[in-house]
């Protein structure tokens, strides 16, 4: 069966510090991968998606970036965090070749102080 791992679960970082959130998927190959952000009590905003290694599409221009160094690894990064980067970051995967349901990771709650 497929599983998705996302860490850390919570993170408190000072303004201006770097960020690296990692997401890995097991039990499938060539998944579509996604990073979403959810502000407190709000909906889900798509940040990045990837349909293959090294292929990253950005939905929202920000001080965040994403990379996919391996087929089942998706990383969200920032060089300098802003207060507005606080939120609940969710990684998700779906099968390729059609519209399939997303499986989300358990998320990272980031607080920038």
């Amino acid at each position, binding site marked *: 069966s497929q599983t998705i791992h996302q860490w850390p679960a919570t993170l408190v970082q000072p303004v201006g510090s770097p960020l690296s959130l990692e997401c890995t998927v097991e039990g499938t190959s060539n998944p579509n991968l*996604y990073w979403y952000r959810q502000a407190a009590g709000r909906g889900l905003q798509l940040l990045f998606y990837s349909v293959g290694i090294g292929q990253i599409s950005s939905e929202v221009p920000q001080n965040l970036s994403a990379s996919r160094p391996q087929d089942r690894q998706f990383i969200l990064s920032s060089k300098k965090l802003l207060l507005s980067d606080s939120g609940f970051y969710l990684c998700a995967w779906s099968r390729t070749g059609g519209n*399939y349901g*997303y499986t989300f990771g358990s998320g990272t709650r980031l607080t920038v102080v």
Partner: protein
Amino acid sequence: GQQVMQIPQYQHVQEGEDFTTYCNSSTTLSNIQWYKQRPGGHPVFLIQLVKSGEVKKQKRLTFQFGEAKKNSSLHITATQTTDVGTYFCAAANDYKLSFGAGTTVTVRA
């Protein structure tokens, strides 16, 4: 991407009662997906609707896709405390899902 609007934003329900949440789009959708997010948790996929007028049931949950494929609804009968959470609809556009703002459900025992 596809924009979907959800109403109501909040739904306060007496335990045992029924309620419906709605998802609307100004454009025709290829399919619609529904997710549930428990408080403090992550969204969990519930179902996907593809065909015009499609109706699917999961125990007390009934999902419907409109004839014009521009709207969808989720109806929950005999609400239980386990139904608490936020229900999102999502529309697909190429490889991406655009989520509605969600309906947050609270239940009075």
